[in-house]
């Protein structure tokens, strides 16, 4: 039930160059189902993943993974998946009254990433809750610096992808600025939005995927509007189903 989502995000294909995927959470929607689907795909195919989390804990993803029929903890124990709770690290440094600079945070992330790349030759990275870095006393320059370094490093590695999940509080908030800054660098942009009319038993929300890097290809150079695909999605215990608009 996750294959539709992975195909839409082009994660089932192999590319020569690395890819940047940005997931925007709009209108209070949670996009952690994308992380769970990607983790399930990587566990099944034995692909190394480095999860940097400022939002959900390892226990959360493990519990979801068990329902989706994969054991995340086992993969973490074997070393193929590395879970770095950057939120906990920064929170502990704040509570200990220590100043942890963005440079120090980045160096720690880089160290783990390069170590994994050396061991497995290809590492995919998922950064969950980038916008939570603002809650951890980092400003837009610092957050942008961490993301920029991470994007540049992934681009220098071959056959890797980076998924950045950011929540947008509202249109005049700094999280909106950060989400757009990252979107401009992305190859693929996925906008996950709750239903504006409320809750529904049939549909969990809207998923709008834009393929922004197509404009650099010759055949799409003179297309003024980026190619996009709009879906409705429904979350189940064991996965997610994508539906075409109007079919529900």
């Amino acid at each position: 039930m996750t294959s539709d989502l992975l195909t839409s995000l082009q994660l089932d294909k192999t590319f020569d160059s690395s890819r940047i995927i940005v997931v925007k959470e709009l209108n209070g929607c949670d996009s952690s189902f994308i992380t769970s689907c990607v983790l399930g795909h990587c566990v099944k195919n034995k692909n190394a993943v480095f999860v940097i989390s400022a939002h959900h804990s390892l226990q959360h993803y493990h519990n979801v993974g068990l329902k989706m029929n994969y054991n995340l903890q086992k993969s973490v124990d074997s070393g193929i998946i590395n879970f770095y709770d950057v939120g906990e690290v920064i929170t502990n440094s704040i509570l200990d009254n220590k100043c942890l600079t963005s440079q120090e945070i980045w160096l720690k992330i880089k160290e783990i990433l390069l170590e994994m790349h050396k061991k497995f030759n290809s590492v995919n990275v998922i950064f969950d809750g980038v916008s939570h870095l603002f809650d951890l006393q980092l400003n837009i320059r610092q957050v942008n610096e961490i993301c920029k370094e991470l994007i540049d490093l992934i681009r220098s590695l071959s056959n890797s992808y980076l998924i950045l999940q950011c929540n947008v509080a509202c249109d005049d908030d700094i999280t909106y600025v950060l989400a757009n800054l990252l979107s401009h660098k992305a190859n693929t942009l996925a906008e996950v939005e709750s239903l504006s009319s409320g809750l529904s038993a049939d549909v969990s929300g809207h998923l709008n995927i834009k393929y922004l890097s197509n404009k650099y290809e010759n055949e799409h150079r003179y297309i003024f509007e980026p190619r996009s695909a709009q879906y409705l999605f429904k979350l189940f215990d064991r996965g997610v189903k994508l539906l075409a608009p109007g079919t529900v």
Partner: protein
Amino acid sequence: MSLFKLKTVPTLLIEDDCNKNILPIITELIGNTDCILKIFCYEQPVHCWQSIFKEKSIQCFKEFQKEDCTRITDKSKKVICIIDSVNQMALDMSWDECLRNIKNLQNDCSIIKLIIVLHTDCIPNASKLRVNLNHMANGIITYDSKNCYKVSIQIKKNGKFFKSEEMISYDRMASTLKLTPIVKADKKVQEPEKISPGNLTTFKIEMDQTQQLEKHKLKLPYMSKIKEGQGKVYYEPDAVDDWDDEDPDDDLDI
């Protein structure tokens, strides 16, 4: 005509957002020039720009360093400079230093054209970057937020100001980009529409012509007597009624 004017502008600011494709207009503005292209790639990887301008002499830089502007291998050639995201540049070095560097680029004689890309959806609320860049630029192309094909063009040249709204299109047969001015139709001054009560409810309030005609035809049984002056009210008080001839409102000072 606007495209020709834009090509002659020394400093051009392009304002877009993540749903817009500005590559056609950048490619058209650079055209078939034999100038050296210097691109400051704050956003896209170097290979993307190299694939777009593969037939040109191109130098790509990931960051702005002062020496990058002055280091030109072939001094007989002029330079066209592109900053692919001034938002990222301002975050990298602070916005006042960014503006100072842009000013230095403008004053550099070897640079014949400076193209700056500003993302309007990436500007923090209190930022004055856009205001300052609008002031510094000789030409501004602003993409409409809702329509990918609509642009607003402003050109400041020789003390004159030119402003127009145009539709952008690409002719695949002729391989040319076109900017077509939008002709605004004269809007007549219209009176505001009167609010009809019938439009405010889901049930019918007003009567149609047939119903009005039937209403007019209907004769009420007592109306004829009233019109003849024969209508009168007879009242006989009961035994328990306390009939009072005085005016009950007499105590009021009306």
